[in-house]
């Protein structure tokens, strides 16, 4: 019975289909259907997971070949799902967090007249995301990949009446498409090289291909990963994506979808193992994004954007880990999972705050909310401790391991990661302080209140997970668990024992917290953003000019080219074709004038014609 992997996808997919086609009468209970679908998926995932636990390490993989998607010539694509240790973890994360967010959304979206559709899209997302992680073929993965992109597009732009939301949705999709370019080319390269796009086969055979192929594959996949995971240089869409309803930000743009890039890299371990260059590229991308994200996180007053910057940064950590090779894969996934918990927790917390603050997102209008919203404060606080890596909390273990691994790889990389940890502590402290501590800076009409039970219970559950997530590392469980997928992890021998590194990290974090507290917690905060700020702050507020650069380098030239070509097509190419016609018309008018009506002219024509004809015939011969 354990091979019904497809049921995992089927529940939410059916939910989505049902809700999208059912009429208005399902408005009343549509959200329940969606939540149940997601929960069923979670339960079934749990059953399968337990089934997997009961097996030997070598046998922990269920392949469910559904049908041939398409097959032509040498190209054969099987619609196959693989439930193995890696995808199992993801399934649980996605359906678990997903279900909680469904529940939360019941409250959050209560007054939205299009709530049914919102839940349909959420279900669609769950289905697509599960397809992504369960795929046994890169093309099926791509199906899920684009499916989550679509769901993300729909949900970012859910409040379509806001032009900014619609624009953000489009931007997310288009930027992701740039990444997809890499994905698509990688898929083609696989087909050309190996005649298949099966994940298993490609990763098994990539070692026997030339290094160039592995590098190309690695870089192309990385491009795809950058798009989906908002890594530099394709990071710009994520901040705008915060236009979506907050549960969406929590589920898609924090906990699950944006980590798909990390999943892709880990899933393609065979490719990256075969190419040093590609691995290095992953590390560089991860590192840069880690710092850029953190930097942006420090400069934002919008609570969701600050969290979004943090998300970029944390995914940077994961990428960094994934780029470290077999040693880092497991830690990347580990951090991914813990991050999924605490970031979802904090986003939902932020949503709860906004719920109480009439959807205001400016932290400068918050302050002292810890009393107005005790549950939210408590759960958010736990998430905060987890993300900054407070000892004992999940983030402590996961981030620690990455920094440790990075140091083992390269001192400078490690130091940069360490710096990132300090900055993380700073901006998260800033966020905490501005939101929950200090003076009230509420607007007059705002009366903060705690959110309803349906929203706080998920917060509590997630907070618990944020605290306890570190348990996965107990006895190196997670590394052992993932070993069949990502290969054996060799422990790096470091110059200093791990405990020393932990201490250093904790110290750096403490410094970050202190700076943050003394800047924002202990002092009064302006309720409008100061305008006289350093260029560094301005750069941070402008997302380090990511949009501006895109605009100048890509968007405007493309649009100008498009408009120019359209003009050229009408006034140039078509005008040429039509012009040939009009020239012929003019020529015709000219020739027409030869018909003067004078009989003597006609006779002249005959005479000259006769003369020419005679001479021509003579000329041919003589």
């Amino acid at each position, binding site marked *: 019975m354990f091979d019904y992997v497809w049921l995992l996808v089927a529940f939410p997919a059916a939910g989505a289909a049902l809700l999208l086609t059912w009429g208005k009468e399902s408005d009343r209970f549509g959200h329940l259907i969606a939540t149940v679908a997601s929960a069923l998926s979670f339960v079934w995932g749990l059953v399968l997971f337990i089934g997997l636990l009961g097996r030997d390490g070598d046998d922990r993989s269920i392949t469910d070949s559904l049908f041939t998607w398409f097959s032509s010539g040498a190209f054969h694509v099987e619609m196959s799902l693989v439930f193995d240790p890696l995808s199992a973890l993801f399934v649980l994360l996605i359906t678990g967090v997903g279900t909680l967010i469904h529940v939360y959304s019941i409250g959050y979206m209560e007054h939205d007249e299009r709530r049914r559709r919102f839940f349909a899209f959420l279900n669609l997302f769950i289905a697509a995301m599960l397809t992504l992680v369960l795929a046994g073929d890169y093309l099926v993965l791509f199906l899920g990949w684009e499916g989550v992109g679509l769901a993300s597009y729909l949900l970012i732009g859910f409040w379509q009446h806001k032009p900014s939301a619609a624009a953000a949705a489009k931007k997310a999709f288009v930027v992701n498409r740039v990444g997809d370019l890499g994905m698509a080319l990688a898929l083609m390269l696989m087909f050309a090289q190996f005649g298949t796009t099966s994940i298993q086969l490609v990763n098994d055979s990539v070692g026997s291909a030339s290094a160039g192929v592995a590098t190309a594959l690695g870089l192309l996949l990385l491009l795809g990963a950058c798009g989906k995971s908002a890594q530099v240089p394709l990071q710009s869409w994520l901040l705008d994506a915060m236009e979506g309803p907050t549960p969406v930000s929590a589920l898609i743009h924090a906990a699950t979808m944006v980590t798909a890039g990390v999943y892709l890299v880990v899933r393609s371990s065979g490719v990256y193992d075969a190419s040093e260059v590609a691995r290095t590229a992953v590390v560089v991308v991860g590192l840069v994004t880690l710092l850029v994200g953190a930097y942006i996180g420090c400069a934002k007053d919008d609570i969701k954007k600050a969290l979004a910057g943090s998300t970029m940064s944390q995914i940077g950590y994961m990428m960094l880990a994934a780029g470290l090779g077999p040693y880092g894969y497991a830690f990347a996934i580990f951090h991914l999972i813990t991050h999924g918990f605490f970031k979802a927790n904090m986003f939902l917390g932020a949503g709860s705050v906004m719920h109480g603050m009439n959807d205001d997102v400016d932290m400068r209008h918050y302050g002292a909310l810890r009393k107005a919203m005790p549950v939210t404060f408590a759960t958010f606080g736990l998430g905060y401790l987890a993300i900054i890596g407070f000892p004992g909390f999940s983030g402590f273990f996961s981030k620690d391991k990455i920094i440790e691994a990075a140091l083992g790889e390269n001192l400078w990389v490690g130091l940069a990661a360490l710096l990132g940890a300090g900055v993380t502590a700073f901006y998260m402290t800033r966020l905490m302080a501005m939101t929950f501590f200090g003076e009230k800076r509420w607007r007059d009409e705002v009366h903060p209140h705690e959110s309803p039970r349906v929203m706080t219970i998920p917060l509590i559950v997630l907070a618990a997970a944020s605290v306890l997530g570190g348990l996965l590392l107990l006895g190196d469980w997670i590394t052992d668990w993932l070993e069949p997928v990502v290969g054996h992890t060799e422990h790096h021998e470091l110059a200093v024992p791990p405990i020393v590194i932990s201490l250093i990290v904790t110290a750096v974090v403490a410094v970050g917290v202190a700076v943050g507290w003394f800047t924002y917690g202990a002092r009064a905060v302006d309720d409008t953003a100061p305008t006289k700020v350093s260029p560094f702050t301005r750069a941070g507020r402008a997302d380090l000019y990511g949009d501006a650069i895109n605009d100048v380098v890509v968007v405007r030239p493309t649009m100008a080219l498009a408009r120019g070509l359209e003009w050229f097509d009408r006034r140039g190419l078509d005008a040429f074709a039509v012009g040939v016609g009009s020239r012929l018309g003019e020529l015709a008018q000219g020739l*027409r*004038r030869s*018909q*003067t*009506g*004078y*009989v*003597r002219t006609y*006779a*002249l024509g005959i*005479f000259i014609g006769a003369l020419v004809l005679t001479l021509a015939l003579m000329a041919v011969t003589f």
Partner: protein
Amino acid sequence: MNEYLALSMILFTIGAVGVLVRRNAIIVFMCVELMLNATNLALVSFSRQHGNLDGQLAAFFVMVVAAAEVVVGLAIIVSIHRARRSVSVDDAHLLNL
């Protein structure tokens, strides 16, 4: 022999040029007749050259045809003259372009 042929060609050309330069329809028509007669000259001289009578015979046919043409042609020109009081070929250019 060649002299006759040359003369015939000259007459033919004169006739042709006459058609091109004269305005009076009657004279234009006479020029065509001149060309016909140039042809007759050529026919007769070729007949002489080849020593058979076909050419000379043909000349008679041509004369008959020319007479028929006169009949038709004058009828047309006269009717135009009645309508327009003019036999200038340049006056008749209503049909053009």
